[in-house]
């Protein structure tokens, strides 16, 4: 396989949550370019994945803002600094080079070369929550899938989806047009999802396009080298169902993952940083900002993450430009010059006599 081109940047940010996104803005003011890696397919981290429709009341200046709107606003705020994104990939390894720069490689082999690394990973990368079924791991990639990455995989196949939330409903609906047979298994008769999704599944069930088994639970998997059959406890009884794929969709749970093996000092599932100065970790050039770091008095708040991101950028600037004179600029006074050639500035006042 030909090696992929290396992505080059000044600051590589791991995690596209609010802290990571805002770091792009502060870095941009200092003419530093950023690239962001995130395990999820969209930016926003927890805010986009867990609670986009819920309000946040402690963002300074916003009496109330929906988490999803805050992400949209941050994306708009950093747009002119043209951040790069490697989404749907997890940072896996880090190699410090002799010149102090870093190469970070993702689980899909994408390589990033950066002068500094800022880990803004929140609670970690989101991993699927796996149901407790014997030999489940054995069947992973042999018929057990935790994500629908490529719907074509299921074309004309029999699939069983388990779960009672939005993703179970939405994928059942979508795949009912792709797969030969869709069965949805849930522990309750009630589903928790958007009203129109619930109604759509109801309709597809009536049309015979979705086979609904509730209240029920998948309790076993059988098959020689691939999923062939599932054991299901259904309303007190047992039954088996033949299938090609089993897709458990029980939500995601964050795990620190590979970052735990980077030689960083970890305490209480968080990365220890120097909060007296710049939120740098025990490895020079690697910073940790936002919910993923810890220090005496740490508070896991978005507004604290913004502050930490700002100091991190200043530290990187000083490291990359040793001895270079620099004064803090106010955006109101200096405006914002984007890497895309745009300029934002305060409207000039007029000086004119009033007669």
């Amino acid at each position, binding site marked *: 396989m030909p090696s992929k081109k290396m992505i080059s940047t000044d600051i590589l940010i791991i995690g596209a949550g609010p802290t990571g996104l805002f770091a792009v803005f502060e870095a941009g003011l200092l003419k530093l370019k950023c690239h962001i890696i995130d395990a999820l397919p969209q930016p926003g981290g927890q805010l986009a994945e867990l609670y986009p429709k819920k309000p946040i009341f402690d963002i300074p200046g916003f009496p109330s803002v929906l988490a999803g709107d805050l992400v949209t606003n941050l994306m708009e705020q950093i747009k002119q600094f043209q951040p790069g994104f490697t989404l749907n990939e997890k940072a896996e390894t880090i190699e410090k080079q002799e010149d102090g720069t870093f190469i970070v490689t993702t689980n899909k082999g994408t390589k990033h070369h950066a002068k500094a690394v800022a880990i803004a990973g929140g609670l970690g990368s989101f991993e699927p929550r796996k149901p407790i079924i014997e030999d489940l791991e054995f069947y992973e990639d042999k018929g057990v899938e935790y994500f629908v990455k490529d719907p074509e995989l299921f074309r004309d196949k029999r699939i069983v989806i388990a779960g009672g939330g939005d993703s179970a409903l939405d994928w059942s609906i979508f795949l009912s047009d792709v797969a030969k047979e869709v069965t949805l298994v849930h522990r309750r008769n009630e589903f928790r999802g958007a009203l129109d999704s619930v109604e759509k599944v109801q309709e597809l069930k009536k049309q015979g396009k979705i086979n609904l088994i509730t209240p029920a639970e998948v309790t076993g998997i059988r098959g020689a080298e691939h999923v062939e059959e599932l054991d299901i406890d259904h309303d007190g009884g047992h039954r088996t169902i033949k299938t090609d794929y089993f897709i458990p969709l029980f939500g995601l749970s964050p795990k620190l993952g590979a970052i735990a093996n980077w030689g960083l000092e970890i305490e*209480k*599932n*968080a990365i220890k940083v120097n909060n007296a100065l710049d939120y740098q970790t025990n490895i020079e050039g690697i910073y940790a900002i936002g919910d993923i770091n810890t220090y005496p008095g740490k508070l896991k708040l978005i507004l604290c993450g913004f502050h930490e991101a700002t100091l991190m950028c200043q530290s990187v600037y000083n490291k990359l430009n040793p001895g270079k004179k620099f004064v803090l600029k106010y955006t109101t006074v200096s405006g914002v010059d984007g890497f895309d050639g745009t300029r934002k500035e305060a409207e000039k006042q007029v000086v004119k006599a009033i007669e």
Partner: protein
Amino acid sequence: MADVTIKITDRDGVMHEVQAPTDMSMNIMEVVRAYELAPEGTIGVCGGMAMCASCQCYVLNDVELPEMGPDEDAMLAEAFYVKPNSRLGCQIPVTEDLEGLEIELAPES
């Protein structure tokens, strides 16, 4: 307002008798975190929105608890290791009514 005494058995089976304040609008999940009875990052992951079940606990005695809301009910329908006495700690506010409550943390999942 007085503190209440709650007995919490952690995931290693160790029982802790803790004092929980009733005047700080805390919930059971936050009490567990405040006393560090489960490692950070393994409890209260969603912050207390009944969206992750990382604070699932088993209620061991018959102290009367607030009724389960639809969010908690739906989350428990998707959680693992659920038993008839399962509740989400984040949905149980600490009030004087909780005096003497005994709970056990469900396994991490």
